[in-house]
Each structure stands twice: as structure tokens, then as C-alpha cells.
């Protein structure tokens, strides 16, 4: 037990160092990207060409294989940002600040994808592009939070203060997000439009569920790869004048 704790401690301290992360991520990246690519191709092809078409919606439901993974990833990234913010505020681990900086644009782009693909899906199935439904509204608010984080970060010249500010905002936003979700949910029950029932309770058949699960897994892997790449690029911008980074760049090729 103690050994495990020690190992975690060592890993944590290593995680705080840029050179260690840069070298380990360059080893991890090829494997992770191959896995992500494989799962993505399998999931998408399985979902779009080989899964049965829906009895009511026909083929249009296949948007689910891109929409649901994007929405799930968007929320998870925000959760991760909040944890990183907590880590940065409490332990001043510089990698956590870098993580927020690198992941926020990725999260924002996936949130946007979830919103737009939802709108494109909604147009033929419900007849409107947009409904003020609880889930849609809280996703829109999530996008606003991402944009606020990106905007706040870019307004600072000093990276250290930027990390600190963004960490505080990510934490407060994460505390507030469940409250927003609850209040939007509750507001939605008051204003329920009678004609449109957006999310009916439905069970998904396993033939559709398995490709969906593969797609979700693929999106998480893709985000992992993109996150590593974005963090490496951010490390490069922060450390471009350091000796260790120059050495790696020159020795590599």
C-alpha cells in the first residue's frame, strides 16, 4: 500500500516537469494516435454503414454517432478543467495551468460541434433548428464558459497570472454548472412547449448501442491525443529558450 502511494507521489512530481512530460508524451503519442484512429474508423463505419436504420427516424438518426460522443467529450473536458484548476490553485502545479490552456479550445470546439450537429439533427426530426430545451440550453452555457476561459487566458501577458486566473474561473464555473443545470431543468418544466417532446424516454437496441460505445471511446482517445499534442505545443512556446528543449529539437533530426 505504501509503495503504491510512493509510486503515485513520484508520478505526480514527475508530471510537474516539462522535460519529463515532453519525452514521455512523444513515446505515448504514436500508440495513442493509432488506437484513436482505429477506433474512430471502426466506430464510424460500423455506425454509418452497418448498423440498422431507425424505425421512426430512418437514416438520419446516424448523426448520433458523432453528436453524442462530441457532447459527452465536451462535458468531460470541462470537468477535467475544473479538477486541473483545483490542482493549480492548491498545489501550484504548473502542468495543471498548461493543461487548462491547452484543453479549453479543444473543449470549446467539441461543444460547438455538439450544438451544431444537434441543430442539424433537430431540423428534420423536430422541424426546428433550435429548441429551448434544458439540455440544449445548458450546453450553450457550457460553450459560454469555455469562451470566457479562452478570453480570460488571452487577456494576460504573464503566463503565471493567466494560469491562476483561469484556474479560479474554471473552478467557480464547475461549482456553478450543476446549479445552472438544475435551474435550467426546472425552468424547462415550467415552460415546457406542449407540441415538441425532444427527449423521450427510449431504449436503444444493442445493435445501435455497440457502435455508439465504440464511437464514444474513439472520441475520448482522440481528445487524449489532441490534448497531448496541444500540451506539447504549449510547452514548446513556454520553454523555447530553455536548453533542454533546444537539445531535443537539435538532436532529433
Amino acid at each position, binding site marked *: 500500500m505504501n509503495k503504491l502511494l510512493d509510486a503515485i507521489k513520484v508520478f505526480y512530481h514527475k508530471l510537474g516537469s516539462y522535460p519529463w512530460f515532453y519525452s514521455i508524451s512523444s513515446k505515448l503519442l504514436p500508440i495513442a494516435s493509432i488506437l484513436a484512429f482505429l477506433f474512430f474508423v471502426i466506430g464510424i463505419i460500423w455506425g454509418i454503414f452497418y448498423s440498422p436504420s431507425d424505425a421512426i427516424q430512418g437514416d438520419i438518426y446516424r448523426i448520433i454517432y458523432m453528436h453524442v460522443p462530441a457532447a459527452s467529450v465536451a462535458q468531460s473536458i470541462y470537468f477535467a478543467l475544473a479538477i486541473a484548476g483545483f490542482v493549480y490553485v492548491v498545489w501550484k502545479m504548473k502542468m495543471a495551468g498548461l493543461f487548462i490552456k491547452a484543453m479549453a479550445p479543444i473543449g470549446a470546439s467539441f461543444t460547438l460541434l455538439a450544438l451544431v450537429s444537434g441543430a442539424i439533427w433537430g431540423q428534420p426530426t423536430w422541424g426546428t433548428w433550435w429548441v429551448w430545451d434544458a439540455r440544449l440550453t445548458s450546453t450553450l452555457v457550457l460553450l459560454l464558459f469555455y469562451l470566457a476561459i479562452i*478570453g*480570460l487566458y488571452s487577456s494576460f501577458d504573464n503566463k503565471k497570472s493567466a494560469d*491562476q486566473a483561469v484556474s*479560479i474561473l474554471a*473552478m*467557480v464555473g464547475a461549482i456553478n454548472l450543476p446549479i445552472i443545470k438544475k435551474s435550467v431543468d426546472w425552468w424547462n418544466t415550467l415552460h415546457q412547449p406542449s407540441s415538441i417532446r425532444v427527449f423521450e424516454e427510449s431504449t436503444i437496441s444493442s445493435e445501435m448501442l455497440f457502435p455508439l460505445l465504440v464511437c464514444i471511446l474513439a472520441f475520448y482517445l482522440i481528445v487524449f491525443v489532441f490534448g497531448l499534442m496541444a500540451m506539447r505545443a504549449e510547452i514548446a512556446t513556454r520553454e523555447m529558450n530553455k536548453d533542454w528543449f533546444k537539445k531535443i529539437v537539435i538532436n532529433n533530426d
Partner: protein
Amino acid sequence: MSFLKNFFSREVLIYSKKSSNVISPVIFFLICITFFPLAVSNDPNELSKLAPGLIWICILLAGMLSIQTIFKEDYDDGSLDLFYVRGFSMLEVVLVKIFVNWIFTALPLILLSCSMVFLLYFPVDKLFNLIGSLFLGTLIISFFGALAGALSLGKNSILASAIMLPLSLPVLILGSSASTYSNENITFFILLLSALLFFSVPIISLACVGAIRLHYE
């Protein structure tokens, strides 16, 4: 205790000397409210239906103006710097500043929104709900605004609003519903709003302290 008292009177003195901080949200609020009937409709039925939402949105937008002033002037002239260096308790500084700002910018708006009974045909029997929810809601908004202002000290003002407005969404929903729906449910909304207030005061004020500190690192 004497520090709190002195600081409180200092803040009150500043706000009473500089009246533009107090007047500009009021003017903004009145202009907004006046323009809505001109742009939407002058039908009393429609207006009284829209009134709670309009009042709340205008309050929120006016709050956007007033949050700029909470820390900005003290930051610009360096007195915030001095408080920090001399080791004053930043938590007390933050709390007093937010509270005084609320007294001088939000209270006039709350009093003014009583006049919406005439201007927007707001139903008189729900006035008590409106005022009660405004009291609690503007306090919460002040806290969120202070955090946004502290994070974006010395930056452009759009950023502060972009941080504050999404945070205050629950207040907007709860507050406007409290002033829309029937009188029997008012305790429910008031309880929810005060829960939100008690929940956010310690967290947001601590976050504010952290946000101010990061400008002096």
C-alpha cells in the same frame, strides 16, 4: 472591528463623493426599460406579461456597468496594492467593497423597479415578490460581478461581462420566475435564492481574494 468600520466609512465616502458611479446604472436601467415598450409593443397585457423578465434583464445589464467600479479605481490608483502590501485582511476588504457597491448601485435600482408598476404595468400584487427576489438576487449578482471584475482587473470590460453573465444565469431564472408565478410559491423561490446566496458568499469571496492576489504576483 475598527478596521471594518473605518474601511466601511471610507468606501461610503468614496461612493457619495463620486456620484457618477451611482447615477450611471440608474440612467442605463431607465433607458433600457423605456425603450422596451417602444421596440416591442405598448399593449398593457403583453407588457405586464413581459415585465418580470425585462426588469431582471435590465438589472443584470445595469449590474454589468456597476461591477466595473468595484475594484477598478482602487487598482488603478494603487490603493488596492497598498492594502495588499500592508497585510490588510483581503477577505474583509472584498466583503466591504462588495456590500457598499451593492448599497450604492443595486438599492437605487430596486427602489426604481417599484415604478415599473406604472411604466410596464407590472401587476401590483406581485410587487412584493419582485422586491424580495431582487434584494437577494442583486446581492448574488454583486458577488459574481466582483469575481469577474477582480479576475479581469486592468483588462477590457467586455471580458468581465462575459465572465459574470453566464455565472448569474441561475439568479436570472429563479428571480424572474419568482416575480412571474403565483404568490403562494414565493417562499420556495426566496428559499432557493437565499440558499444560493449562502452557498456563493464564502466561495465567491475567497475566489475574489485569490483573483486579486494574482495581480500582485
